[in-house]
């Protein structure tokens, strides 16, 4: 009995793993151009993911990581970014915060995204004193995602701001035409400050402020 396409599709992953009826699957592949294309595509995707190689581990990382593990009091820098590199590579929206968050809105900034092209928008917050457990909330316009957070329209994090410069790094992607605002709200105690980021899309594949 000849296998139907729907059966082939449902067993495709098993077949990729060598767990399906080989003869039946191969017989179907020989007679069905569409399923054969699907199979080739699945193989190509698997091969592409396998070929993704991480950047080489920093030569000193192993030594430092072992040292920090065996001497827990050793310095443990985390989540760092190079100011020069970060600012050169991205859109940067500088925002100064006072000693305390004042009520009211910051000036509107704008950014142009190309559709389906991820762009990291970086905002620098200057804080004149450390703020512990500040809450950062984002409200995203339709068609805009923070990469890695799926279709969630509202995101919120609790974070500590250090005295001086703090970098908010948002990998954004537009999935369609956008002409709207992203709202970023930073709250600490009774104070709240809202930042508005105008987002527009262009077909030219360029981005800028």
């Amino acid at each position, binding site marked *: 009995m000849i296998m139907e396409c729907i059966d082939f599709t449902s067993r495709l*992953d098993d077949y*990729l*793993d060598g767990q399906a009826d080989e003869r039946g699957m191969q017989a179907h592949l020989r007679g069905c151009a569409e399923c054969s*294309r699907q199979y*080739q*595509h*699945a193989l*190509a*995707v*698997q*091969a*592409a*993911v*396998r070929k*993704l*190689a*991480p*950047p080489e*581990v*920093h030569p000193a*990382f*192993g030594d430092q*990581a*072992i040292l*920090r*593990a*065996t001497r*827990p009091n050793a310095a443990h*820098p*985390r*989540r*760092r*970014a*190079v*100011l*020069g*590199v*970060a600012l050169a*590579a991205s859109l940067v929206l500088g925002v100064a915060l006072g000693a305390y968050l004042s009520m009211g809105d910051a000036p509107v900034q704008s950014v142009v995204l190309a559709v389906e092209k*991820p762009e*990291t928008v970086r905002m*620098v917050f200057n804080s004149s004193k450390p703020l512990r457990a500040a809450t*950062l909330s984002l409200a995203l316009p339709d068609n805009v995602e*923070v*990469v*890695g957070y799926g279709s969630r329209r509202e*995101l*919120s*994090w*609790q*974070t500590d*701001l*250090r005295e*001086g*410069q*703090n*970098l*908010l*790094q948002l990998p954004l*992607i537009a999935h369609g035409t956008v002409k709207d605002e992203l709202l970023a709200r930073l709250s600490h105690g009774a104070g709240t400050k809202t930042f508005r980021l105008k987002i527009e899309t262009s077909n030219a594949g360029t981005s800028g402020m």
Partner: protein
Amino acid sequence: MPPVFPYRSTRPAELNFEDLIRPQVEYLYRLAWRFTGSVADAEDLLQDVLLKLYPRTQEMLAIQKLRPWLAKVLYHQYVDSVRQRARSPILELVAGGDGEEDPLDNVPSSRDGPEQDAERSALRDRILLAVRQLNPEQRAIVAMHDVEGYSLEELAKMLETPIGTLKSRLHRARQRLRALLPMEPFSADERVNR
């Protein structure tokens, strides 16, 4: 006759933490990068794992197959850290010094011309972006099964998760990747590069 301990290692007891871990650092870093998709997050994850492992050095001496055991510890640390806190995107700025490399900026060089390099770079960006759009557990199963080659049976034992759950997680992850990486020109490009 002395009792047989099938999982008891024959490693000499004088091996220390560094002797055990150093040969595994690169492997664990690679796996952590595949889980997290970023160099800085991979380094942080691995550092957290090493901090937890150091007090367990004696236990590690008795592990026969250390690599899968370490992969399991790394996986659990990764999933726990994702569950416990939605990571804040606010980073600490450091003026100068070593910094985070965005994997999207890191493209292997080749002997091809700039056009081919640009095409390869764009393709790599698309694949990385697609992988980043999987949820953390989907990324982990793709990394451990499709890339590192652990079978579902091995993973079911390692991760103490029913095989059916892993199978459906893998199925959804692959479906999502295929949807995010459509047939053309992706497949054609891949075929050219084989």
